[in-house]
Each structure stands twice: as C-alpha cells, then as structure tokens.
C-alpha cells in the first residue's frame, strides 16, 4: 500500500464531504453549484490516483476523468441557464423561495 495513493484518496474523501456540506447547506443556487463542483473534484482526485497508482497502462482511466470534467462543464452551463431564467422571472436565485420548482 503506497502512502501517496492513500493521501490522494483521503484528500478526495474530505473534498467530497466538504462539497456535500456546501451543496446541502447553502440557499443560493450558485453556492450550491460550487458545492457540487467540489464533490466532482473529489471524484476526479480519486480517479487520477486510481489510474496513476493501480492501472497506468489502461488509458480508460484518463478517459473517465475527461468524462467527469465534461459533467462539471455541463452542470455549470445548465445551472447558469436556470439561474438566469430564475433571476429574470423572480429577481432572485435563492432556493428557499423556489418551492415551485418541485416536480
């Protein structure tokens, strides 16, 4: 067991926890998106560590990292689109006032 792999995995775990706290505790849509970004960043750290220390010969691991980066970009684009629409309609992106978005 290499200490570098464990250090990277523990970093990813803490980033995931901090991001989850942010996504659940914030009331503003942009701040919630920041929490989700941190969650995905934690996943990225784990994926790169797994690729580097367990299977550096298999580049599907790096491909997986690119897919997660795509998810981050898509989340930002859609989130900001919703934020703009919400701000135009209600003048605020506070999620406590957005009960009408429930299905």
């Amino acid at each position, binding site marked *: 067991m290499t200490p570098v792999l464990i250090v990277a995995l523990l970093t990813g775990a803490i980033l995931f926890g901090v991001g989850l706290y942010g996504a659940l505790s914030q009331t503003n849509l942009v701040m919630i998106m920041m929490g989700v970004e*941190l969650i995905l960043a934690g996943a990225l750290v784990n994926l*790169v560590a797994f690729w580097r220390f367990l299977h550096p010969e298999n580049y599907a691991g790096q491909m997986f990292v690119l897919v997660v980066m795509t998810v981050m970009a898509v989340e930002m*684009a859609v989130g900001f689109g919703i934020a703009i629409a919400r701000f135009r309609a209600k003048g605020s992106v506070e999620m406590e006032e957005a009960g009408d978005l429930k299905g």
Partner: protein
Amino acid sequence: MSLQAFFVAVFGLAAIGFGVAVFRTASMVRSALALLFSQAAIGCMFLAMQSEFLGVLQIMMMATEMSIMAIFMVMFMMDPGGLGGMDMSHQKRFSIGAGVIAAGAAFAVALMSDWGPVTAEAPDAAMQTRELGIEMLGRSMLIFETAAVTILTAMIAATAVAIPVREPARNDDKNENDKEASR
C-alpha cells in the same frame, strides 16, 4: 516520505483549505476565488501524480470556469461583497452530519480496502498524451463523441432557457403602427 507524497499532501491540504474557505467567507467573490484556488491546487496534485495532461487541463478549465462563476456571483447575489453579514445557509447541523458521514465512509473504504500491487513508474508525458489520443479516437470514440454532443446540447439548452420570452405585440399597437406607416 517520498517527494511525490510530500507534494501530493501539500497540494491536497491546499485544496481542502481553500474548499473549506468557499463556505466560510461572507464575500461571494472571495468564495469564487477560493474555489478557483482549490481547483488549481487539485490540478497541481495531478501534476505531482505525474498526470501532466490532465493537470494542465484541470488548471486551464477551472481557471476559466471559476472566473465566469465569480462574474455570475456578482450579478446574482444580493450582497456580493458580504458587507451586510447575511447568513445564506440553512439546515447546518444536518449538512455537517451528512458531510462527515460521507467523508468518514470514504475514509473507511480508502483505509480498509486492499488496493493490490501499486505501480511505481508512470509513463512519460508525451507517451500519456499519445496513448490518451489513441484511446479517445479508438476504443472510447463513442464515449468521446457522446460527451461532445452532451456539451453542445447543454450549451443550446442553457442558451434557450436564458433567452427572455418575447411578449406578443398587442393588436392595438400593431394597428397604430400600420396607420403611421400608411401616412
């Protein structure tokens, strides 16, 4: 402790520190900048783990993304400078509990799993870039194309959602305009 472990730990601590700062500062611009530094530290972690292409990509992508996020924060927040001391959080105890449980579970999995043999040497940067290119345009072509189409769809959908709805012109206004045009 090896030099690589040292740098991974230092950049990891920086990423965590800035990640925590995102939710602790009252200023929204500082939050966005803290997230930018956190993501840049993660990019540096990738570089320390000899994953050069992904490290540079992470730093470049996140620098752009977080700069845009800072602009949106200033646009949309009621108190972007945090001068009013507004508390914009709720269900704190539940959120802390959920974060601690999730991080603890991930900790347990990381420490208790048998990860098997670890590879000491990674391919060099040029080899990595070449092999990743072959992977993207070979075996993972469908995934790569799907990711590209997903981003394009998200861009079009986000633009469509953000465009304001045009209200139809009233008939009275239209008739008046026609009369003015006929004069």
